[in-house]
């Protein structure tokens, strides 16, 4: 399963980013190989339509799951249509690592 998590930085210790569209980075994590990769979010630098740009990027990465603080209506529509599951951070989590663990334990709320 491929997860994408919005992040302020480029590794698993980085603090999470609550905005989806304007998140500077998206951390891609493969639950099978346990490999991760930091991808710059193309939406991060856009003035309008950042959410859709980020959603398109997530879809192109063939992600199964995307985790962030919130999703705008346009981004959510695109992700839903592509059957990418959206999950939200839980208030106690700080970095990407924690988010992945908590998600795998099945404790993150769905969007």
């Amino acid at each position, binding site marked *: 399963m491929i997860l994408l998590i919005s992040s302020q930085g480029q590794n698993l210790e980085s603090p999470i980013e609550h905005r989806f569209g304007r998140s500077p980075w998206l951390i891609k994590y493969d639950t099978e190989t346990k490999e991760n990769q930091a991808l710059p979010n193309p939406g991060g630098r856009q003035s309008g*339509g950042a959410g*859709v740009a980020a959603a398109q990027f997530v*879809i192109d990465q063939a992600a199964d799951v995307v985790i962030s603080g919130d999703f705008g209506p*346009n981004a959510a*529509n*695109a992700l839903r*249509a592509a*059957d990418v599951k959206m999950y939200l951070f839980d208030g106690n989590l700080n970095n990407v690592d924690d988010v992945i663990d908590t998600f795998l334990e099945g404790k993150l709320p769905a969007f």
Partner: protein
Amino acid sequence: MNMKIAVASGKGGTGKTMVATSLALSLIETNQVKLLDCDVEAPNAHLFLHPTFTQEIPAVIRIPKIDPERCTLCGQCVEVCQFHALAKVGKTIMVFPQLCHGCGSCTWNCPEGAIEEIPNPIGVIEKGTTISGIDFTHGKLTLSEPMATPIIRQLKKLEKSSNGTITVIDSPPGASCSVVETVRGVDFVILVTEPTPFGLHDLKQMLGILEDMRIRYGVVINREGIGNAELDRYLEQKGIPILMRIPFDKEIARGIAAGKPLVVIDPNYHEKFKDMYQKINQIIDKSDGRS
């Protein structure tokens, strides 16, 4: 000769609409005057002039409609849309009408001719006349997305002035692309500002835009008495003409809040606005080398 004057400001709430409406009311005594409210995200000149609207024109942009029979999902359209109004999702191209600016790039770039353009309403343009005879037009954006530029373009295109008309344009606040669209092609811009550090900062941004566009301008200082002398010093140093000073005055503030035009609150301003119009003409003549 026609004359087009835009009234702009670095930020909202500086008294831009107050100046535009009172200028129009002062000039209507001797001229044919049009007022165009291009502040389409928050039009309010009508609250001071109370026009009777007689015409309503839908403001539309053309958005893409994709023919799934012809579309090969090549993704070109998604690629070229700088507003991210399109997304390729599975076996379809999704269109997000609220994000589309109607620029036509997608249609132009589709190799399969799979895109047809359909009208999408983004607002209305209302036209009417005021009791004093001002020809009034404004645009109202109905979308939540800020998409002011296309409606301003349509608004300005509708205005074919007959000879000798003075058009006063209430511009959107701030230094944005909708302001650029509004002031494009005008003869003069009146910048309304306050004598505060914030006022000066915002004013400088506007000056930069007008310098780039080579449009002549002058400044109206509103609420003089608050703030400091930095603005005056700056204007003097740059040789920027001061067209009028409106003092900070409780009577004026109260009247404006109640929807009264400045020239109604204090009729002495009729003459001041006429003088200002003369000043503007002199500045234009001078820079045209006709003085």
